[in-house]
């Protein structure tokens, strides 16, 4: 296994270089000139040229790319072009609020989705199954933005069960007071598609020969579902979680904007609007690295879930 992990880590280097190149090309082609945004209301070509010089965007492309590569491997992305804040400080301070919302959201959504998926797969074809599927389809058809607007107005303002918006310095206050409504919203929105997906995973397994054999041998239905079906369905579920997991580190821009959560999603969108390349670079590269690490961990986890998988 060690050799496998080392090989995979080694393979990450060309992937990171590819990500660097892609971000660099995208920024220089479609990102717009940051000097124009930073120049203020009145500026002349000399001032624009001076800003470009100060930012280093007047250097040849190969040199800018080399600086970018150095930044990635030294984890030093310098300072934000718009606020002068250290990029490392931006990431460290914004990732906390994002995880405070997104981690419980992923845990609750996934747990509920797996549980409900097992249950509806168990009663497949019944009115309950069909009813839940219709509700899921309808729930998926409504825009996330509409949910946010309605939930915030209803639960925050009309009923007063939660604060309309806000964030504090206390982790517990955030988790118990400010985060519940955004978490509830994200769970509500995320549950329907995941439930439908996991149900299909369970139904695929239920129709396998080994399940029929277990039933023929007289294994009780609950044991069939929880021991045999569940374990095999976990492999595609793990894959799906691996896809979702990196997303929790950048959060939901809409949730963060509507609930005034000082998270990374809001920061990234602001950075894009301000052509703040150091922040965009750092967050994108860091997300790519997290995605690769999570994929590696999930591949290792496959072995634990399914003994048939080998590290070759």
């Amino acid at each position: 296994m060690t050799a496998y992990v080392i090989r995979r880590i080694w393979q990450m280097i060309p992937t990171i270089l590819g990500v660097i190149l892609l971000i660099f090309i995208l920024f220089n082609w479609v990102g717009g000139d940051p000097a124009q945004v930073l120049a203020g209301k009145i500026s002349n070509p000399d001032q624009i040229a001076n800003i470009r010089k100060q930012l280093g965007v007047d250097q040849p492309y190969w040199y800018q790319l080399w600086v970018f590569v150095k930044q990635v491997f030294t984890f030093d992305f310098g300072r934000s072009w718009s606020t002068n804040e250290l990029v490392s400080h931006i990431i460290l301070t914004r990732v906390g609020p994002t995880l405070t919302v997104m981690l419980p959201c992923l845990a609750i959504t996934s747990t509920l989705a797996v549980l409900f998926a097992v249950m509806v797969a168990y009663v497949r074809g019944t009115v309950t199954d069909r009813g839940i599927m219709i509700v899921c389809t309808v729930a998926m058809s409504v825009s996330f933005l509409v949910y946010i607007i309605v939930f915030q107005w209803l639960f925050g303002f009309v009923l007063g069960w939660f604060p309309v918006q806000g964030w504090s310095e206390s982790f517990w206050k955030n988790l118990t007071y400010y985060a519940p409504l955004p978490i509830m919203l994200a769970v509500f929105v995320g549950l329907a598609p995941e439930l439908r997906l996991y149900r299909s995973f369970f139904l695929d397994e239920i129709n396998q020969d080994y399940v029929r054999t277990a039933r023929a041998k007289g294994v009780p239905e609950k044991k069939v579902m929880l021991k045999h079906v569940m374990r095999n369905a976990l492999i595609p579920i793990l894959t799906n979680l691996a896809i979702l997991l990196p997303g929790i580190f950048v959060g939901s821009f809409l949730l963060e904007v509507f609930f005034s959560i000082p998270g990374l999603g809001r920061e990234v969108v602001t950075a894009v609007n301000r052509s703040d390349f150091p922040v965009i670079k750092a967050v994108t590269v860091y997300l790519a690295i997290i995605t690769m690490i999570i994929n590696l961990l999930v591949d290792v986890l496959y072995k634990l879930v399914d003994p048939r998988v080998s590290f070759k």
Partner: protein
Amino acid sequence: MADAQRKVLRVAFRAAETGFDPQRIFDRYSVGICENIYETLVSYDYLARPVKLVPLAAEAVPEPEEGGTRYTFRIKPGIYYSDDPVFHGHRRELVAADVEYAIKRFRDPKLRSPYEWLFEHNILGLDELAERAKKEGKFDYDTKIPGIEVRGKYVVSFKLKEPNFNFLYFMAMPNVVPVAREVIEAYDADTMAHPVGTGPYVLKEWVRRSKIVLERNPNYRGFELETRYADMADEWDRRAVEALAGKRLPLIDRIEIYPIEDEQPRFLAFLNHEHDILDELPFQFINQVMPNGKLAPQLAAQGVRVFPELQPEITYDVFNMDAKTNDGAENPVGGYTPERVALRRAMVLAHDRNQEIYIVRKGQAIAAQSPVPPGVVGYDPDFRSNAQDPDPPRAKALLDMFGYVDRDGDGWRDTPDGRALTVHYKYNLGGQEQRELAELWVKCLAEVGIRAEAVAVQFADLINDKRVGKFQLAGSAWIADYPDAQNFLQLLYGPNTEQSNEARFKLPEYDRLYEKSLTVPDGEERNRLYREMTRLVFAYAPWRLGVTRRFNHLQYPWVKAYKKHPILYTNYKWLDIDVAAQQAAMK
């Protein structure tokens, strides 16, 4: 003081701040915070309308000397900066050298100040110093220049190259504040996070883009409301005078500011009593808050007050006046020939500004009558022209007269020489309002037979394209930096092309009048020059004048002495809070 008795004001900003180094920032929210932490030498009276300059850190508003080329300020002795570790426990007094240092900072290339233009081509010797800094890579703050004379501890005198009767307005801008050199040098790269000023408040807490807390500056000397310019027939002035009579300001102990970018949470937070003031009520909620122009009963019952404000700003659409765009393409709307002028004027007449006001802007705007909006010196309330009023029949007649007719039978007008005519309107990809305005242009031009296409581009690209002339027609807006018509009319001054003159309008007659207006102090002679310039704008139509927006500011009744200032973004230091009423509402 017990927490329960502390006067705490809670407000929201519509966008996130960037930082608090006054010479490095330009967004109005960061500048608004600086208004409370720093002090300009001169500022604006709270109640006077039209606005009036009054001394702040200076002893008096200086009179222009030497034909408007010299301004001498005497700083009030005994003004102290707020405490900071940099001062090693000593009180640090504000001195004239701090003003000199701050002004030089605007020209330091390393700072890339967005307000560098304020002190470009005016203070004697400063341009040369800035040029030298560009060459040598370091700004020499110790070199003395003839344009800034520090005379002793408290006097600083500026000598300008040319007369400039708006220089005092420059000195009233919240960015143009003295700073202590040792503070700037000590915090160096992180000056955005360490504001140290002489103003009424200090930065107590800052969670970037989430929460800004200001608290009273214990070193602040305090002041009393100036009532000399109050209009007691005005209910806002009367209430302010009554609420603050005999009181030493500021009265608010703590100000909590929350940047909330989206409109709904900002609005709901106010309705929920989480905030005391709602600045700039979002247009989308106007019918809920003010159905038929009257405050909704449930808000009226709570004593909510609405301060309506026409901001000193205008929106406008810019025609690129060059015959070719920056990328070498033919520009059908550019040029000064009679048929090009006629085309632009016809397009202006074709545009239905009423739809813009009542549909896009929900009735919260008035039609601009000149490039100079209400509320600034030089605005003429009696000036009216029908050159920019919607009139499609006139537009059609004008187009027919100058040969813009459909020659190939495709239903669209062609140019007088028979080529197909398509006008491109560029707008910001990210804005819903901008998209609606673009659609309105396409629709209005189609009604008079002109084919138009709306082209959405990234915000940064739009700024660049407008600056270098890579567009035909595009939307724009300008809010007053200082309350004088010159701040608006410079937008069409020929030499400002590639800077603020997005239309690339180069008319010798206009430039001559503009240059002359700079040498004339405020008065009838200057107003006459402004009117002449406005007439030229109507005649050549480098702009379609848009609107001046009306903003409504809401406050709960426990906020006392509220009045929105047209130039200053915040008014916290003049406000008071009825703590008992505030806390009762929060229960």
